[in-house]
């Protein structure tokens, strides 16, 4: 990236093998100081394995991790200046809210009065009432427990705060609220957050950069818009939402009518053209576009202010089109539809780049 300051966290060729199964294949990653990085990937892609190694609960099979230039993969978890918020939260059931928050301070031998003052401060930061200090953990709601876990992690004052899907057990509304609060908290504390999630939506709302993980490797690490517009592989393109793929072989793509300019631009190239359903627009019979497609509508779905159509092209390929409601196709299912887009809206994944996928 353009930032030239040294990374706070540097991961180099990190590998983790369980018996005969390799969960991480030589991961490389630089994380900037104060960044909010989201790691997204399907179940079993190695997200938890990676984070457990980074906080020190597991040992890597190979590779190294540096934090501000100090090698930390050899340091036990209780000596690392990092801290993790568990999916289960892992609050201490036999301690009150206040005692939970103070726990890391108590371990360091901070005086009780000072501890309490700091815990109350953190209750304020997390927008929990101060009288929660003496409440039992069991008396807190899911969202409140979440905040207590966060407060406890902040009391530790880590260099990097890790999260392993902390919101996945909560209901939708609460999750939305806490997403915003987390983002806000990140801004206020200026700490580096590394956040694992299944939900791309969550990642897009909160993070500065998203790392897409697949089968123990990072497929792409970039800001959300860039990943969305310029995915490096079909896997990433599909992960980021619905998309149409067209094979391009030496400048020719069956099912796609190319304008002269587009033909010239794509001449000789081979790969996969990716086109997002919402970047397509309806064309009249004589309308022109760099890329155009013709077919018969086979299904329509109302999506609030938009309508999504599925259409079958002459080649037999299915295609997804999304248009504003006012541009609805007359006749609906069974009608002929002609759509198109500019060349700039179609992203080409070159052959080699997708070979691994």
């Amino acid at each position, binding site marked *: 990236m353009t930032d030239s300051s040294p990374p706070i966290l540097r991961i180099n060729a990190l590998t983790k093998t369980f018996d005969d199964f390799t969960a991480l294949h030589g991961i490389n990653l630089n994380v900037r100081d104060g960044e909010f990085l989201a790691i997204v990937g399907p179940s079993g892609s190695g997200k938890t394995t990676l984070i457990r190694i980074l*906080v*020190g*609960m597991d040992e890597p099979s190979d590779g190294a991790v540096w934090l501000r230039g100090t090698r930390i993969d050899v340091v036990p*978890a*209780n*000596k690392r200046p*990092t*801290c*993790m918020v*568990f999916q*289960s939260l*892992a*609050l*201490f*059931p*036999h301690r009150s809210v206040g005692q939970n928050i103070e*726990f*890391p301070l*108590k*371990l*360091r031998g901070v005086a009780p009065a000072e501890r309490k003052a700091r815990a109350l401060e953190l209750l304020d930061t997390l927008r929990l009432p101060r009288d929660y200090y003496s409440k*039992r*953990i*069991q*008396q807190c709601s899911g969202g409140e427990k979440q905040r207590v876990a966060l407060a*406890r*992690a902040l009391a*530790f004052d880590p260099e990097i705060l890790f999260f392993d899907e902390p919101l996945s057990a909560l209901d939708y509304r609460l999750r939305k609220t806490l997403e915003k609060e987390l983002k806000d908290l990140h801004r206020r504390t200026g700490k580096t957050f590394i956040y694992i999630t299944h939900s791309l939506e969550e990642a897009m709302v909160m993070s500065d950069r998203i790392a897409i993980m697949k089968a123990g490797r990072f497929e792409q690490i970039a800001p959300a818009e860039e990943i969305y517009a310029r995915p490096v592989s079909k896997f990433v393109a599909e992960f980021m939402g619905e998309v149409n793929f067209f094979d391009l072989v030496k400048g020719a793509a069956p099912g796609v009518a190319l304008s002269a300019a587009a033909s010239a631009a794509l001449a000789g190239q081979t790969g996969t053209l990716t086109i997002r359903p919402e970047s397509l627009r309806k064309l009249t019979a004589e309308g022109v576009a760099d890329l155009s497609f013709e077919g018969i509508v086979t299904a329509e779905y109302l999506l609030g202010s938009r309508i999504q159509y599925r259409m079958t092209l002459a080649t037999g390929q299915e295609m997804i089109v999304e248009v504003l409601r006012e541009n609805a196709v007359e006749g609906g299912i069974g009608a002929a539809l002609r759509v198109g887009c500019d060349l700039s809206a179609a992203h080409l994944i070159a052959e080699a780049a997708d070979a691994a996928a």
Partner: protein
Amino acid sequence: MQQRERRLGLLYAAPLSLFLLLTFLAPILLVAGFSTMPEKVFSLTQMPDFSAYRTVLEQGYWKSVAWSLFMALLATLILLVICWPLAYGMAKVFKRFTLVLTIGVVMTLFVSENIRLFGWVLTLMKGGLIEGYWRYWTGQGFDAPLYNGPIIVFGLVYVYLPFMLFPLAQGISMVPDDARQAAYDLGASRWQILKEIDLPLAMPGIMVGSLLTFVLAAGAMAESKLLGGRAIITIADEVQTAFTYGQNWPLGSALAMVLIAIIGTVAIWAISKADLDAMMGRKS
């Protein structure tokens, strides 16, 4: 609805309550009754007479009580220390081996305590398994480590190990792994994890195990008779003697009542101190 549930609850509890009344409370009342009778007289119409208790105080029986309680306490503490790592392994580490260990320990219970203690006597006595072979090979004999105080405590530890081990393992298995990991991640050392997480969260198991072993060991006599050769006479032994050779039932009953009172107080105090629900974080 709630009223009905309460009535159903009482109904369900009735058979067990009745059973306990008959088998637990009734004998105690009977013993209490006997303890207030004068010596060598048996009459139900007798006025209560506390001469048996005076005998208990005057004839130095408190020494047996003190020894029994002290050795029981010592055995309980030793068992706590020995069983903790073992129970930890059973609950968290051993996996399949836990079953083997469980079966092994439970199997010892199939053989009567007296027979197992005799086994130890045969092993340890002069001319026994160890000393006999040692003398045979080296020509040098040594005194048997039997018939003293420490060997009685050893016997108590040996006999009551299962009663500490299993509750402890149960207690430790209730400590959530993620709490321990979170504490470690937040900077806790091994000792701090033990003190702040493991001990408090396993406390129900610790309490149950300690109470069981303490109560059982305080009322034990086989260890002192067989291994200890009566080097120390336990209170249970005195009670038995009073009932059998002594033919002094009121004295035996009074001694039993004293023991019951002391142990009952300890048990009730421990249980009330240790609010099991609160310790397990269940109270809301």
